[in-house]
């Protein structure tokens, strides 16, 4: 594969529509393709969550048009429990894989990494194109499960075995739907592995002259470390997916133990281990949450520094903290399994590492605050979302400290406390990172500015909205409100909690509705926005030295040479309050 790519790299700008926009080798086009793939997925994912929230609090309500979408999943418009779980599975899978893994890393990373390191393109453009199209195929296969057999699987995005392994006898969607799910994930793994390989190689080998590792923008560091995590973890998920597929269609018994009786039917498997799946899955799954959040951290650092008009506080500490998160991220997967039947001694060891991983996260937070301290804050929309990121990351991160401790987790495991925790810290925080990135780099990507007024309205509703949705989940968790229930009417202690759920559902409706403001702003600005200059934010990294949008080969044959770090703002004695990375003139202080 590599041999094939050798030397086919240096490419001229294609002219045909297909080569230019569809099967493009240009990292900028591929980055936008990833971005729009994620945008489509997030719209579907939010729609699913709205339907779920609706059903949760008005379980007997007739949801308009839902019976048209799935006559068996919602007869008469009333959602069945199995359809709720199908939507839940699809929501989780879409969001985790096709949004959180895709947009911040493959979307922004593809568009910006080569420009920020002064390269013409990624190291392997053909692999890059392949990785997008494999990911696209994964999305198509996943969505196709809505239209075959009993619909999408109901085993959740974690697909715990044996529920996911024994076929349709275990529930609707566990036939064809679950098989399609596994294939989709396997495809996604392949796409991500190819992408990760490309990112790492590009960062290591294509940096321009003068751009030492410690002069990289923190975004590049984040993408690089994320790519390392992806390379090591997606291979394991792929292996797990192959084993699961063999259990499902090949009659093997990797994850299915002997003597199962499902719906009074004996299952002809023997000797497999359900915990093996959990170990393999979470060995991937925990690094995965850092894959989702690290690029957001990079974007936030970049945006905070730019609009504080200050160098990032503790650049090296930021880099080392990200490395530590990446490293420790591989040693904490067992904290998902405290009550799974895993050895309690092992569980405690995992908890120590998990608490330790809170340390680099705290370092990052302190450094962000340090960056704001003494700054000259320009509170535009991108900056607001970056500030929102810090707030949400703190809130969601701190609730992780409860779940990391086995005794405390005993009572909170599998409750809404967990749902609130990970939605805040890796869901909406990461999405706030994406919003910040979108407002920040939109001028570079599309050559026009986004509307600030609409952006701010969108920010305010979203920021308050997500707190109204996800903060109460922690309170529900205290009360023992179990997650993944399709209604709360059948367990006595859940019934008094329904009013709070109603509040959250209304907040979810409003917040989801506010996203139309963003979508409108995005597409309207693409065509009607104010034309962007080369460097509208007065930022310093290399992407702001090229036109907006950049030409096909980014630097038009020029070789930028880097003389300094990426966050040289408000340098005393400098003519302006920022100094470009490629500015050769000496600067008074350093």
């Amino acid at each position: 594969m590599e041999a094939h790519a050798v030397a086919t790299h240096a490419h001229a700008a294609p002219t045909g529509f297909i080569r230019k926009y569809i099967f493009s080798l240009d990292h900028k086009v591929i980055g936008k393709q990833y971005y729009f793939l994620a945008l489509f997925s997030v719209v579907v994912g939010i729609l699913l969550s709205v339907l779920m929230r609706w059903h949760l609090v008005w379980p007997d309500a007739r949801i308009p048009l839902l019976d048209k979408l799935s006559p068996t999943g919602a007869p008469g418009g009333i959602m069945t429990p199995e359809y709720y779980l199908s939507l839940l599975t699809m929501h989780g899978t879409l969001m985790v894989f096709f949004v959180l893994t895709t947009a911040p890393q493959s979307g922004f990373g593809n568009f910006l990494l080569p420009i920020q390191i002064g390269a013409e393109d990624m190291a392997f453009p053909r692999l890059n194109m392949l990785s997008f199209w494999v990911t696209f195929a994964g999305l198509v296969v996943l969505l196709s499960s809505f239209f075959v057999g009993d619909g999408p699987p109901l085993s959740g995005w974690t697909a715990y075995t044996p529920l996911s392994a024994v076929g349709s006898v275990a529930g609707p969607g566990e036939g064809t739907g679950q098989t399609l799910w596994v294939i989709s994930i396997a495809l996604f793994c392949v796409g991500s592995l190819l992408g990760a390989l490309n990112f790492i190689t590009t960062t290591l080998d294509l940096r321009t002259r003068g751009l030492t590792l410690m002069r990289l923008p923190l975004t590049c560091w984040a993408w690089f470390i994320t790519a390392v995590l992806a390379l090591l973890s997606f291979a394991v998920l792929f292996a797990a997916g192959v084993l699961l597929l063999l259990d499902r269609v090949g009659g093997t018994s990797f994850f299915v133990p002997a003597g199962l009786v499902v719906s009074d039917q004996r299952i002809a498997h023997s000797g497999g281990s359900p915990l093996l799946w959990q170990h393999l899955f979470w060995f991937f799954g925990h690094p995965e949450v850092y894959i989702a959040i690290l690029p957001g951290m990079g974007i936030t650092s970049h945006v905070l520094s730019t609009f504080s008009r200050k160098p990032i506080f503790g650049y090296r500490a930021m880099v080392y903290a990200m490395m530590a998160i990446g490293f420790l991220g591989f040693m904490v997967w067992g904290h998902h399994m405290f009550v799974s039947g895993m050895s309690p001694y092992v569980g405690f060891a995992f908890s120590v590492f998990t608490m330790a991983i809170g340390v680099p996260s705290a370092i990052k937070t302190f450094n962000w605050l340090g960056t704001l301290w003494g700054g000259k804050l320009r509170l535009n929309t991108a900056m607001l979302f970056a500030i929102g990121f810090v707030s949400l990351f703190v809130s969601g991160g701190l609730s992780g400290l409860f779940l990391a401790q086995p005794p405390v987790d005993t009572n909170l495991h599998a409750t809404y406390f967990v749902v609130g925790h990970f939605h805040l810290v890796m869901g909406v925080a990461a999405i706030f990172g994406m919003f910040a990135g979108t407002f920040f780099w939109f001028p570079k990507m599309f050559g026009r500015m986004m509307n600030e007024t609409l952006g701010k309205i969108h920010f305010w509703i979203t920021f308050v909205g997500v707190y109204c949705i996800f903060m109460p989940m922690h309170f529900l968790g205290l009360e023992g409100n179990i997650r993944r229930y399709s209604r709360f009417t059948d367990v006595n202690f859940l019934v008094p909690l329904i009013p709070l759920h109603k509040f959250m559902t209304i907040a979810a409706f409003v917040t989801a509705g506010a996203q139309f403001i963003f979508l409108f702003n995005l597409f309207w600005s693409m065509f009607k926005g104010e034309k962007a200059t080369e460097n509208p934010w007065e930022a310093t990294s290399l992407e702001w030295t090229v036109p907006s949008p950049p030409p096909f080969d980014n630097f038009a044959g020029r070789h930028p040479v880097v003389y300094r770090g990426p966050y040289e703002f408000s340098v005393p004695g400098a003519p302006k309050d920022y100094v470009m990375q490629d500015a050769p003139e000496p600067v008074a202080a350093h």
Partner: protein
Amino acid sequence: MALAIALVIAVITVISVYVFWAHVWWLPVDVSTHGASIDHQFMMTLIMTGIVFVLAQLGLAYFVWKYRDRGDRRPAKYSHGNNALEITWTTAAFIVFVGLNLLGYRSWASMRFTPAAADALRVEVWGEQFQFYFRYPGPDGQFGPTHVNLMNDATGNALGLDRDNDPASKDDIVTATLAIPVNREVELILHSKDVGHSFYVRELRVHQDLVPGMAIPIHFTASEDALNYNGGRYEIVCTQLCGLGHYKMRAFLQVMTQEDFDKWLKQQAEEQQ
């Protein structure tokens, strides 16, 4: 704008803290002997994270307001950081986080590192889509073997007991309600017939997955308090996604005095002979 964001963050912080402080929603009552240590560890964590939460959020709010661009000529502070500060807060965070975790060691160890006492009441818990069954060993103290070819819910033999041929099964009592005596250690042995389930009684602070192919023991003691709430009746719920009926996979736990328990068990035994 700066004031607005500062205020919003501050208001969110205050409301969040208030809800925790005022126990608007709170942990359910604890009716186990080990629950106090869990709740204590929870409180320690809550206090620590609460302090960090308030400081970080209010700090963020304050900085955003204080350091907004006021349009004056004040330049931003040109600083790349402070190594002493980095080392300080790294060390502090490490000590607080890991130290907090170590404080919880004894709570976890007392629950999980030691087996149940020899005289504990042993009960098997069986999960299936979507029902819990409980099996008491009867006077012989032995659980008879289960036969997968005999498992049939419709004949009332969900666990596949062969009462005619297995002497140990003869006196086994299978119920759909878990009754336990108060103040006596109970050891549950968790099994699953089909997919993963979980056994969770929030008032008992007991939570453990049922994993097919494994027999997982847990043990606890219901405290005297257990009789005082809701007639000693608590809900056992499944917390591991197990299929379409997950949301109503539930059973009841009835805590009784030892005499009531003996009576109840005898009555169940008579019904099943």
